[in-house]
């Protein structure tokens, strides 16, 4: 199936899903606001700390807020457009995957469109504002090339985020209950990458730069944008990490799907 057709079908399925949500979920404003509020509180927390200590491990306030905001901006995009990954446990355990397997559309595409996390809009907006403020207040030497790289890093950040969600939630094919404790744990490890990884012991640094490459969402882009010379060039691994993670997670998903057993009637 061509990429163009996949985008078209994604859009069609997504818009229908959105209509349904606007009709049935009257509480989405509350969800959105609570998500935004959580992130604003985190921001205030950082501000309070930096009010006392102006420099943590060589990192300034607006540099850390950038990393912080990258984590929940990508979370916002993931829940707004790829929330379906979080419904996988239900799809698998209640045999609802049957329906997807009967249609001539890639299963992963249908999984993505299974739900929309409207609260993602809150994360997306607040995250966007903080990133914008961070770039405005931080010491950034702007060039056209740099702007292009930042856009690229945003894209790879989203890919990494969604790929990890997909891989984590594919655990549903092995863990046969409707909860999602495991993917949630994987997801929460992203919190580590809200701060400079130099704060953490070696093992954690390696973990969030390799198996769960959250550092490529926040830390490595920050080293590039704010010109941290000791890390120069590392950002170039971000696209590599994104592609590798995307392939790995799709592989895990496909392997899981081959173990899918449906359910009896």
């Amino acid at each position, binding site marked *: 199936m061509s990429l163009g057709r996949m985008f078209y079908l994604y859009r069609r399925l997504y818009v229908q899903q959105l209509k349904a949500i606007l009709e049935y979920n009257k509480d989405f404003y509350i969800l959105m606001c609570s998500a935004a509020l959580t992130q604003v509180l985190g921001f205030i927390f950082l501000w309070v700390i930096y009010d006392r200590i102006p420099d943590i491990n060589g990192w300034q306030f607006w540099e850390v807020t950038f990393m912080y905001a990258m984590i929940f901006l990508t979370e916002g995009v993931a829940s707004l457009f790829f929330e379906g990954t979080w419904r996988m446990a239900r799809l698998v355990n209640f045999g609802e*995957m049957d329906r997807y397997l009967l249609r*001539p559309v890639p299963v992963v595409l249908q999984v993505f469109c299974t739900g929309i996390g409207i609260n993602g809009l809150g994360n997306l907006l607040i995250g966007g504002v903080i990133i914008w403020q961070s770039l405005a207040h931080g010491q950034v030497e702007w060039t056209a090339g740099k702007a292009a790289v930042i856009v690229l890093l945003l894209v790879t950040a989203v890919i990494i985020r969604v790929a990890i969600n997909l891989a984590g939630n594919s655990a549903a094919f092995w863990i046969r209950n409707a909860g999602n404790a495991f993917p949630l744990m994987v997801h929460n490890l992203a919190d580590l990458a809200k701060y400079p990884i130099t704060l953490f012991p070696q093992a954690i640094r390696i973990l969030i730069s390799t198996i769960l490459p959250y550092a490529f969402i926040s830390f490595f882009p920050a080293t590039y944008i704010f010109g941290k010379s000791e890390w120069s060039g590392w950002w170039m691994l971000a696209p590599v990490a994104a592609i590798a993670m995307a392939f790995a997670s799709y592989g895990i998903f496909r392997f899981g799907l081959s173990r899918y057993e449906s359910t*009896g009637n």
Partner: protein
Amino acid sequence: MSIIEAKELSKSFMQAVKEPGLAGAFKHLLFPKHIEKVAVKPLNLSVEAGETVAYVGPNGAGKSTTIKMLTGILAPSAGSISVNGINPYKKRMENAAQIGAVFGQRTQLWWDIPIVESFSLLKDIYHIPEAVYRRNLDQFIELLGMDEFIHLSARKLSLGQRMRADLAAALLHNPPILYLDEPTIGLDVSVKQKIREFIKKINEEQQTTVMLTTHDLGDIEDLCKRLVIIDHGSIIYDGSLSEVKSRFARNRLIFFQIAEPLPLLMEQLAATPGMKLVQQSELEFSVAFDRYEYTASDVVSRVMRQGEVVDFRMEETGIEQVIKAVYDGNLELNHAESGEVAQSHAHSQA
């Protein structure tokens, strides 16, 4: 070549073995134990294009598992399947484009959006040309009486409405093959009738191959010429519906109404081996007999020789009794040889 061809097809699942209680749960967590549960034993099945096949068997016999393998939902454990030349599991998307499927227990429609919008999504998903889509939609709305609910979302439909919508959804893209897994379960008589007529029409007009699992014997008698019975994961009968009836529906029942009481005849009939007399009243009685031992005219002439028959009617054993006997394990279809054993047995008694 057959349109559906399964060779040595089998499926087994790994099933967790847990001991009861919390201790058992912990033990399973540390030392998970699994046993292999065979759902479908190696089976061979071939269906010709345009055929209507009833695939029946008791709950847990392996019907749905077979259908799920044929539709590409489940990977077979062993054996091969070819549906219109396509391996449904390996080429899932290609196969999905050429089949329609209705699973009675579970809707294929989007829960929260109007039926008509669901259909329009399916039009895009299956790449249905506008003209074909229009024609089919109009025809289906009329045949299935969907006018009244086509603008409602699936969650608001009654079961009968939902099933009709599901059936239409499965056929919008004119699939050459249609799988139906209990399509009439829980429906009232009039909706059942509508659905059966619709399936029959589609089969006749478009030569759609239909494979149907059901517990409803009306579905089988109305729709299917061929019957495949599966039990404990193996096919125990595969042949024409009329043949299974003539071979295994051995009992005939004749009801008589007579002009005056005939106590002597009653005694004779009751004493005849191979006949079973049930007297409703002095003037009304029925005789059940094995049609391999006696013919209907034997029975009728015996009665008529002794007195005046006001009325009589004959009842044929439905497929229902036959299948029930199979489910209960009373009848080994493959081993039963038509009549001869029973006949010689009867003679030695006589």
